[in-house]
Every structure is written in structure tokens, then in C-alpha cells.
């Protein structure tokens, strides 16, 4: 199925969880460093393993970057 990750469409498995998506983006979902919001609502890291994604959802995956 297709979700919108950080503004761009992305194909993921139909049963993918947030943890799967984060791993797919190259980050270890058990480690800190990344936060996830789905439709503007933050999903705590503890729920990533059990939170499935739905087709069409807008997902923001945010991390620390140089700045400020």
C-alpha cells in the first residue's frame, strides 16, 4: 500500500507497523533519535510495534539535524 512519508509517497507492506517503516528508513526503532507523527498526532515509541499504518496516511518521521 502507499503512505505519504515526509511529504513523499512510499510503498510499504500492507501490514507494516510504524516500527517497520522506521526500520525501512534505516533507523533502529528501538533506539532514540527519531519521532513519528501520524496526521499531526505524535505516536510514542512504545506504541510503534503495535501500531499498523493505513493506506494514504500522512506520516512524519523526524530526527535531529544540524541547526540553530
Amino acid at each position: 500500500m502507499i503512505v505519504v512519508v515526509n511529504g513523499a509517497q512510499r510503498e510499504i507492506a500492507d501490514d507494516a507497523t510504524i516500527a517497520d517503516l522506521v526500520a525501512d528508513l534505516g533507523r533502529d526503532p528501538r533506539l532514540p533519535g527519531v519521532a513519528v507523527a501520524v496526521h499531526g498526532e505524535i505516536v510514542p515509541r512504545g506504541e510503534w510495534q503495535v501500531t499498523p499504518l493505513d493506506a494514504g496516511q500522512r506520516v512524519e518521521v523526524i530526527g535531529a539535524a544540524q541547526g540553530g
Partner: protein
Amino acid sequence: MDDPFVIAGAEFRSRLVLGTGGAASLQALERALEASGAELATVAMRRIDPSATGSILDVLERVGCRPLPNTAGCYTARDAVLTARLAREALETDWVKLEVIGDDRTLFPDAAELLDAAEQLVDDGFTVLPYTNDDPVLARRLESTGCAAVMPLGSPIGSGSGIRNPYNLRIIVEQAGVPVILDAGIGTASDATLAMELGCEAVLLASAVTRAQDPEMMGRAMRHAVEAGRLARRAGRIPRRLYAEASSGSDGLAEPAPAASEADR
């Protein structure tokens, strides 16, 4: 630790907070951070880039710097609050450098939105370090909401113009019950020294180091600059005078023999 910098109960040896934006590379940044001796450094919250190599957090860990997430780029209280919460999730810290920008040419804060965001975040348990303009009234309002520090600008972000209104800064320091951190505008070492002499507890700067021709050397300069200003503040400077005040006494001046004197002149 002698004369530590204490903020919200945490102690730091260094009174220099570094922003990590503007560096040519993570390597250059790492060298500059190390040279600066900073123990706290801001990071922005951005969409992750899967193709990126290296991580700012790894850099900070290697140099012993605590990451301080900011809300750079936010123009409303709502965006800033969301960004702060994302940062808390991602970095497992409830410290946040709060920025709510009002204008993209000056990057000055929007006073009303800033106050609103500060209230929300304090209520939500954050340790809020707000970037503010040099308005003494706004600084007091922010302190009243429960901010852990106030961080007035010296001049616009990245302008390198130092402290354009030292009077306002002095008033803010005199009236503050929380640490005042000079944030924004530092261009060179003497600006940072002056900020500390005016009574700031710390200095936050980015471009002055990361965009200097030699960031590592400028990092070193800033470490000394902040230390110099802090020590000078504590040491108690001499007063300013219009006229001179001799440092060599005139007692015991040699007296040329009168005869010779008359002949020569």
C-alpha cells in the same frame, strides 16, 4: 566544580552553548565543538534523510555535548509546541530551546506567539529556554510563565552584529530571576566577552563559529572569550573615567641636576 553554569538544576563547566547550523560538514562541526569546549548544543528537528551519512547526535555524543532541541523554523505557537513534543519523543529530553519566529528577514521572535507557546510547554512539563528579543517586559513575562532561562538576542540571528543595545540587556539581567543567556547576533569573540561582562550566565552562538573562515580556531576563541567575560564580571572591573588616572606614582622621580637642566632646555 568552581563557578558552574546551572540551569534547571543541571550543572555545566562551560558557559558556551553552540548552535550546530551552518557548518560545512559534520567533521568540521565536530572539530569546532571540541575546540569550543561546549557541553550543550542545539539541534533542529527535521524530516530524516535516509541517505544521510553520519549523525549529529553521534557527533554530540563523541564530544560530550548534551543535545538541546530547538523549534527553529516555527512561526506559530502551535508549530513550536508540536516540534517540541516531537523532539521530546525523539531525543528523550524535556529541554527545548523555544523559537517562534515573526519575520523571515529579521528572524525576530513574535512576542505574543512566543508567550503562548512558552505557557503551553511549561504546563506540559518542558524545561523551556525561550529565544526572545531584548525587550525587558517580554523577558519578565517569560520568566513568569515558568521558563528556566531567558535568551535575548543581541542582534538578528546570523547578522554577526554583536549586542546592539547593551542597555536593554543590562536591564534584563538586573530584573531577571532566572539565568539570562545571550542568544543570537554574536559575530566575534569580544561580543561574547561583553555579553558575559553584562551579566549573562552563558552565550549561545552558531554562525560566528560554524561560518568563520576557520571554525575550529574560532571555537577555541569563543571558549576563551566566554571564560574571559565571566572572570572579568566576577573580578569587579575598574570604573570608567573621562580623564586619566596615573598608574605610576610620581613620588621618587629622578631629578636632573639643575645646572644641566637649565643648559639643555
